[in-house]
């Protein structure tokens, strides 16, 4: 996680002491264990390497080695957020294929996974809130309509904040086929938010669209992957590939030690004693900007 103020292990302990005389004092205190989460994909020759343990990893935070806890990828349910472009340029067959791709993802989720759907044209809408019951998400896909301009950047931010609203492991899948024309937020601001976020974003953009750089950077800063989509005919396959890759990632966590609290933290994640390609976010931003 990029913001140390967020905890995945937040422990609030309230201690109530009642005197025999009945005077009530309610001292309470909270204990916050600051923790950073890093989603990591380890592969060799394009194939994911599974079965690694915490000791197999070396994590450097601004060059300082950290003690790694490992939360296995199969122990934490996923929060999958679909942020989908439903602007005018998507109308027609492409929208059908987008719906089909979204349904493909929902069908592939486990019983403890959650999903949300954010749609964006010029308007950004939480079409289905994060829930295990996927009925609302399915309805949202059916109701999606290809009308209006494109607020891609706003839509990404809305999706990212859905991911931040829950402590679960968040995967944000963004699809767009056009250039942002109406967002209020700037790319820079949303990319900065991405650097503070645990959410891992995967972008899927039509190759002819003009927004590739934003989605590429978004994916890069969050440790995800940017997919250039030649045709939406294969969008379902792309979405399922993203989910499959995400499921094969390790979730590492550590409590930062020996590093300053605020500012940009460069992350280096390595696997000890074996040849492997490691994919993780390049760092995180902490504290006020």
């Amino acid at each position: 996680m990029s913001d140390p103020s967020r905890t995945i292990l937040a422990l609030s302990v309230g201690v109530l002491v009642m005197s025999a005389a009945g005077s009530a004092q309610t001292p309470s205190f909270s204990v916050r264990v600051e923790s950073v989460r890093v989603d990591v994909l380890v592969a060799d020759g394009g194939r994911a390497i599974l079965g690694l343990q915490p000791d197999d990893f070396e994590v450097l935070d601004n060059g300082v080695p950290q003690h790694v806890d490992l939360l296995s990828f199969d122990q934490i349910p996923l929060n999958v957020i679909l942020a989908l472009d439903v602007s005018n340029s998507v109308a027609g067959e492409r929208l059908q294929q987008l719906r089909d791709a979204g349904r493909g993802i929902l069908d592939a989720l486990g019983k403890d996974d959650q999903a949300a759907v954010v749609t964006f044209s010029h308007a950004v809408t939480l079409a289905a809130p994060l829930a295990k019951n996927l009925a609302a998400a399915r309805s949202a896909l059916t109701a999606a309509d290809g009308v209006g301009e494109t607020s891609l950047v706003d839509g990404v931010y809305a999706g990212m904040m859905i991911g931040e609203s829950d402590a679960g492991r968040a995967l944000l899948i963004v699809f767009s086929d056009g250039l942002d024309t109406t967002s209020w937020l700037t790319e820079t601001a949303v990319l900065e938010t991405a650097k503070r976020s645990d959410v891992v974003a995967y972008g899927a953009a039509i190759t002819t669209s003009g927004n590739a750089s934003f989605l590429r950077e978004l994916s890069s800063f969050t440790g995800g992957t940017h997919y250039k989509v030649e045709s939406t005919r294969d969008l379902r396959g792309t979405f399922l590939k993203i989910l499959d890759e995400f499921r094969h990632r390790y979730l590492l966590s550590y409590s930062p030690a020996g590093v300053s609290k605020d500012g940009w933290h460069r992350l280096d994640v390595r696997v000890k004693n074996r040849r492997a390609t490691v994919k993780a976010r390049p760092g995180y931003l902490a504290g006020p900007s």
Partner: protein
Amino acid sequence: MRCAVLAAGLTVLFAQVGSAQYPVRSGQLLRPSREIVVGAERVVRLERWLLAVESHEPGAPDEPATTIGSWSNADLQALWVDAGSLLVLMRDLKRATFSVRVGAQRPVGVVYPWAQLRRLKVLACAAAGITDDPQCLSGRAAEPLDPGLAALARHSAATRKAGDDDNYVIRRAALLHTDIATMRLARTTEPAASPSLVGPERVRVALSDGRDLDVVMAAIHWEIAAMILDHVRPKGASRPNPAGDDMVRRWYRATSAWMQLNEDHDTLHLTRGREIFPTDPEILFLSGCQRETYASPGIQNAIRTAVVPIGYSIDLGSAHAELRRAETFFRGAIARAPDHAEAHLRLGRVLGLLERHAEAAGQLRIAAASLTDPQLQYYAHLFLGVEEEALRQYEAARDEYTRAAELYPRAQSPWLALSQLARRNGDRAGALRAMDRLYALTADDPDRGDPLWMYHTTQARGADERLDELRRPFLAATRP
């Protein structure tokens, strides 16, 4: 290479414009011929046009307007040439030679054989309301007029008597073509193709969602109306002088606003407006708005990817260049009208986009203090919030965003702004609270809306009323 000029609405218009003996506006066009000979059918068509000018009721999609609206571009180009000749002849009945000058090229001769010239003079006498002029009474110019032309001559003469010289036909003709354009009566189905006639050309590119969808030749009704109004001779003037005419000023203001309201921008139109009225604050303001729109991502992206016909180029700069142009126009408007709060608002926004945040905040504070329209206040607070944030005045930024949210609680932009501001300051809970307000906005909420979505048309909100005002003196009930 022909010079192409952008105009758009989320159509983009590329135009090549020439001029017939009037100030050249823009463009260059090579023509193989140095002389064109006008056939009889063109004079017949010109007469039909004059009758349409006479019988059209301004503001009504009536038969005269639909008829002229159905004419092809070739017909309209011919009309552009022949109407220009007619207007010259109205004031100089001895004139026998005419020419058309297109761009910087040498003039092209326009030859009317004797029979056509004779009929042209008959039409000129009627149009000018001078059928009793000795030159009109002499020779074949005195031939009987059909009822329509007779009525035209009568009305024109009455206008002259009332003190508006021979402007009757000029003003009504401009309104006819304005109505055809604004009521979408013009034929628009012709594909973009290489031109074959002398006259202005317009290629329109329709845009949607940041991309170009269609390229067609556009009818040149705006060009015809503007050319005709160049001939207005204000009361007491010995020469055409549109700059001295109040109707022409109001026409440029109203039509430019209409174009912006309908996202149908036309660069040349405002360029011509500024040539005639270089210090008019409203025309300068609308010019700034147009350039600000041209800097928007939707148009910038579409222009980058648009495929225009061979021979056309695009007179559109980068977003930065267009913002600089907008700044110049807004400053010009404010210099002439310091209390123009909306110009301060727009200038502030443009300066902010140019990353001159302190200047921008200054302009936006002026706007926020004097604007009373809620929508404009909303813009002022939202934009000022951005500048305060850029200046690291986070409390002030939050206050401005909050004011915007209070004005339009169902608009998404203030909640996004508040959320992002909180998030950047490490306040995750605050960021989520703001987003909860956005998440509560449903797609089917009929009251949902963000004024920001209308920012590029808001400046033109009174355009239809301005056009009605322009037409009012020419309605049947008020005809001389």
